[in-house]
């Protein structure tokens, strides 16, 4: 741990009583206690119980039978799990990479172009429109999308037919070659508003003089975006990427409502796979193993994301001093 003290010097792992007076620190710990205990009750204890169950053979009722690493060995050889994990990586593309990239361009365009030419009210309306899917419950959005994407009377196919592109009609959620991409498309729509709003907030704190100076120097929109917008809101990009990657790895609701992992497992993801193993197959021990592994993966990614962010912030602060 690195602590910055007055005068700009850095002290590593050493306690400085003058910098932290005793009394306020003690009461601060006390105020943390209820939260910490609640965290223990609803996160740590269930997680430890889940980890334990992952080492057993259990149907959810009766006594669990200790089975050691058998579930983990089974997981390693389970092609269905690894297929679901591969689909998770597609979800990372749909829920983190694409929304971040598109969100960046859209945020910059709204902030830098639409704002200037059409006024802040139009920007606010557009931003709200992009954010709307984030407010809608996924169950509702999913059902509406399943109507839109329905093969026979879905509005997407009807629209394609109406504009003379009848040959492009597809069984969007029922064709194993297309279903995953359809779900990804829906998730891009769901997810886009979040990065957009975060990036627009980030852009508020960028010094407008930077843009003005660049504009005077003859830099076009794209150049200003690349050399000013991107570097200036890097902390926001890090936060969004970490957050969205975690959301992508644990995505469940959309798959449950849209496809139930089908057709033929083409859209299965680990959280849904774990759910069916738990409740449909009543293999609670194996289901717990899957969710333990998933939690560990998410935890590692979250910590790595936070680490990268801290390092970037440190580097930035170092650069400024």
């Amino acid at each position, binding site marked *: 741990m690195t602590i910055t003290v007055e005068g700009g010097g850095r002290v590593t792992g050493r306690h400085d009583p003058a910098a932290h007076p005793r009394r306020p620190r*003690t*009461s601060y710990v*006390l*105020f943390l*206690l*209820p939260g910490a*205990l*609640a965290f*223990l*009750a*609803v996160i740590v*204890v*269930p997680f430890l119980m889940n980890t334990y169950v992952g080492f057993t053979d259990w*149907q*959810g*009722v*009766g006594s669990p039978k200790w089975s050691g690493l058998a579930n983990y060995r089974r997981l390693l050889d389970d092609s269905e799990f690894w297929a679901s994990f591969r689909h998770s990586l597609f979800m990372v593309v749909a829920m983190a990479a694409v929304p971040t990239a598109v969100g960046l361009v859209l945020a910059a365009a709204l902030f830098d172009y639409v704002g200037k030419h059409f006024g802040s009210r139009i920007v606010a309306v557009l931003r709200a429109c992009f954010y709307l899917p984030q407010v809608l419950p996924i169950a509702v959005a999913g059902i509406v999308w*399943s109507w839109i994407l*329905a*093969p*026979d009377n879905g509005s997407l196919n009807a629209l394609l037919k109406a504009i003379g592109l009848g040959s492009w009609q597809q*069984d*969007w*959620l*029922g*064709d*194993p*070659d297309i*279903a995953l991409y359809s779900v990804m498309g829906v998730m891009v729509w769901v997810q886009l508003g979040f990065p957009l709003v975060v990036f627009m907030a980030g852009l508020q704190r960028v010094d407008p003089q930077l843009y003005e100076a660049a504009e005077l120097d003859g830099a076009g929109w794209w150049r200003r975006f690349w050399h000013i917008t991107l570097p200036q809101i890097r902390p926001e990009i890090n936060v969004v990427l970490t957050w969205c990657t975690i959301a992508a790895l644990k995505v469940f609701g959309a798959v449950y409502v849209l*496809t*139930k*992992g*089908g*057709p*033929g*497992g083409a859209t299965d993801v680990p959280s849904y796979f774990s759910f*069916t*193993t738990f*409740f*449909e*197959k*009543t*293999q609670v021990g194996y289901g717990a193993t899957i969710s333990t592994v998933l939690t560990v993966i998410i935890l590692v990614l979250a910590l790595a994301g936070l680490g990268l962010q801290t390092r970037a912030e440190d580097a930035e602060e170092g650069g400024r001093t």
Partner: protein
Amino acid sequence: MLTARRRVVTTAVVLAGSLLLTSCGGSDSGASDGRTLRLWHYEGPDSAMGAAWNEAIKEFEAKHPGVKVKFEEKGFEQIQKTAPMVLNSSDAPDIMEYNKGNATAGLLSKQGLLTDLTAEAAKRGWDKEIPAGVRTTSMYDTNGVMGSGKWYGVPNYAEYTMVFYNKDLFKKYGVAEPKTFDDLTSAMNRFVAKGITPLANAGAEYMAQQYLYQLALSRADRAWVDKYELYKGRNDFHDAAWTYAANTFADWVKKGWISKKSSGTKAEDAGVSFIQGKAPILFSGSWWYGRFKAENKFDWGTFLWPGSNLTLGSGGNLWVVPKGARNKNLAYDFIDITMSKKIQNLLGNKGGVPVAADPSAITDPRAKTLIDNFNTLSRRDGLAFYPDWPVAGFYDTLVSETQKLITGSEKPGDYLGNLQKAYDQGVPKQ
């Protein structure tokens, strides 16, 4: 200062302790007072069963002055997913509706979470009223396998599958109403020639696998069903019946009798396409009967799958009495009322399939056909259960594998091979 700090700590500990307790689910919901019957079921209030159970509650309260029925409406999924945990806690109701089958009621009975109802069934005569085919799902052995052993649940109704057809569409397109299997296939051919997909199907849910199982049943007998559902011998998915079913199903998709685009369709969509008069034929269960009766704007009829002695069906969901129920005698009284002629007749007239109704009291003509067909099936021991029953989680396997068969991404032989693998992995070792 010290006192204040201690107070903060105490408050925090109490708060966290209560959170811990809540998360462990240990709340007590009232002692056995003999004056409350806690009842859970998941039938919609407008369904035949919902209406019958509501009447039964009124009847129960009239016969038990001072006793209140505390009914909690639950969702099917809710009960299905949480039953073991609820029954393991002190929150268990006195009586609840539960899904029948090895992976559900069988599993709970094996774990000792349900009350043995054998003595009550004999004492109150339920064992005589409920036909043999329906009774199969009431009884479970020590391994939780249905068909023999002790009574752990009582079904008051039955369900079975049939062919629903739109008489108006048949007339409009000059297609004769089918009497035999050949009639059915030639009718489907005629519809395809007119540009209409004849069979409503739902690949994302149970419907597709039920078509397939029905095709297998048309080449099977009771011993085949017992082998598959009750593990009496090794079930071979490459036998003649399964092979015929997979090949025929794939062939029907190729011929356009079943839409290639139905792999992602849900049962509700298929039902609605029939109600809207788009699909002329739908093969599904009696659970659609009430809905079709209320919503179909055309003349329609039903018949049993032609050329097959067996069809999908079973006793309905079960009344079970949790081991920890506090008012078991009241629960038995309630079951008894649901078995009474009055409630059974009401169930029949509302479009359900009662197990002990008085035939002369069923006045609705369609309901009469429904019950007559059930009696025909019952007489020939024709209820062959459902294809997803033998193995926990087999429903999902059947859905995803049959979807591949619909989209043509899997050949019938590979399809059957994958079913065999999943079945062998999940079938209980005895």
